[in-house]
């Protein structure tokens, strides 16, 4: 197969676009497309300060790399979760993130959950009895809370995450299966900011996970290959595998599924948007971040419970 631009041997074939490119032209094409998506969805401008949530995985490191190559003011933020799983998962992902930041001379903020709140994520999950024996719910809650806190406290205009199209399609698939209308209305490339909540954007949301893997390989980005040990057997991975089986026989199925959803949501064909507007949020009395609960937000309640439990022991 030949590169469409130069006719040399192609390294990446994107069947959904009927486009094959050599390594050199692929490394030009990805930032060009990212820039197009940033503008199309009004994500941010060159004047704004961007905080990139970096995990040490391929997607977030690739996102940081692309934004810097495009000339955006992008700093990184790494959250140490305290997950070992027999593979030193958190230590290794932190090492790779710091390595990337040092090699590219970039600013990286590091938050260590255990140092900040007394316990690592798996212990917080056990103490709080949230998440049916897995720490994923507590981990997601803590990450959302901390990303927003750092973005707010350090004056960033926008928080960028490395979610790719497979991530988005898997979430969409899961929410569609049970018609989670509220979640469906919230899903999109941009989650607008509001009082106390930073704007969240997903500049890679139209790239396949396969394309981001190819980008990281082609750029020589050293990323953590192992997924979080707790992600094994997860529902999102199951949905991604199902969607990939469909993609094999119907190239473009994932892309169409996601893009048609965005179109339908935007046109108001799916649900009435006022349901979302009506959701009542008020500031948590402890941390000040918006919450829909009547008292402290879920994260502050979690930390209080953990502190009380630790004091008893």
């Amino acid at each position: 197969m030949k590169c469409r631009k130069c006719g040399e041997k192609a390294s990446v074939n994107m069947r959904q676009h009927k486009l094959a490119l050599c390594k050199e032209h692929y490394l030009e094409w990805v930032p060009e497309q990212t820039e197009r998506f940033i503008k199309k969805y009004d994500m941010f401008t060159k004047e704004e300060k961007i905080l990139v949530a970096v995990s040490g995985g391929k997607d977030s490191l690739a996102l940081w790399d692309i934004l810097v190559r495009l000339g955006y003011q992008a700093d990184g933020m790494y959250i140490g979760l305290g997950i070992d799983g027999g593979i030193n998962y958190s230590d290794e992902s932190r090492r790779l993130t710091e390595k990337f930041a040092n090699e590219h001379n970039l600013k990286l903020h590091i938050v260590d959950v255990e140092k900040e709140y007394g316990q690592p994520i798996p212990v917080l999950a056990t103490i709080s009895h949230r998440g049916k024996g897995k720490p994923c719910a507590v981990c997601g809650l803590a990450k959302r809370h901390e990303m927003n806190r750092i973005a707010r406290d350090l004056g960033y205009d926008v928080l960028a995450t490395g979610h790719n199209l497979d991530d988005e399609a898997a979430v969409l698939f899961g929410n569609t299966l049970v018609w989670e209308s509220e979640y469906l209305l919230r899903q999109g490339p941009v989650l607008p900011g509001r009082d106390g909540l930073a704007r969240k954007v997903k500049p890679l949301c139209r790239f396949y996970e396969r394309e981001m893997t190819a980008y990281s390989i082609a750029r020589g980005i050293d990323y953590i290959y192992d997924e979080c040990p707790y992600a094994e057997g997860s529902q999102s991975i199951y949905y991604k595998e199902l969607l990939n089986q469909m993609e094999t026989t119907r190239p473009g199925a994932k892309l169409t599924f996601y893009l048609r959803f965005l179109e339908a949501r935007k046109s108001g064909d799916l649900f009435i948007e006022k349901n979302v507007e009506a959701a009542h949020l008020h500031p948590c009395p402890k941390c000040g971040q918006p919450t829909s609960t009547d008292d402290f937000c879920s994260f502050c309640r979690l930390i209080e419970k953990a502190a009380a439990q630790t004091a008893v022991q």
Partner: protein
Amino acid sequence: MAKLILRNKEFEVHAGMTLLSALKKINIVPESVIATKNGEMILEDEILKDGDVIKLIMVISGGSI
């Protein structure tokens, strides 16, 4: 024979077949991996040669084969 390596598993296939045929033969969904030979990415139409060692990289981290 050509060798395909995925994490700690190794598969042997006959030389002369395409990468796509080899992946199908060992029951790997082509969309779920990227193949490299000598560190360079190769595509599904690549014809495997005797002695080739192909490293398969999972696209979904943590996913099963």
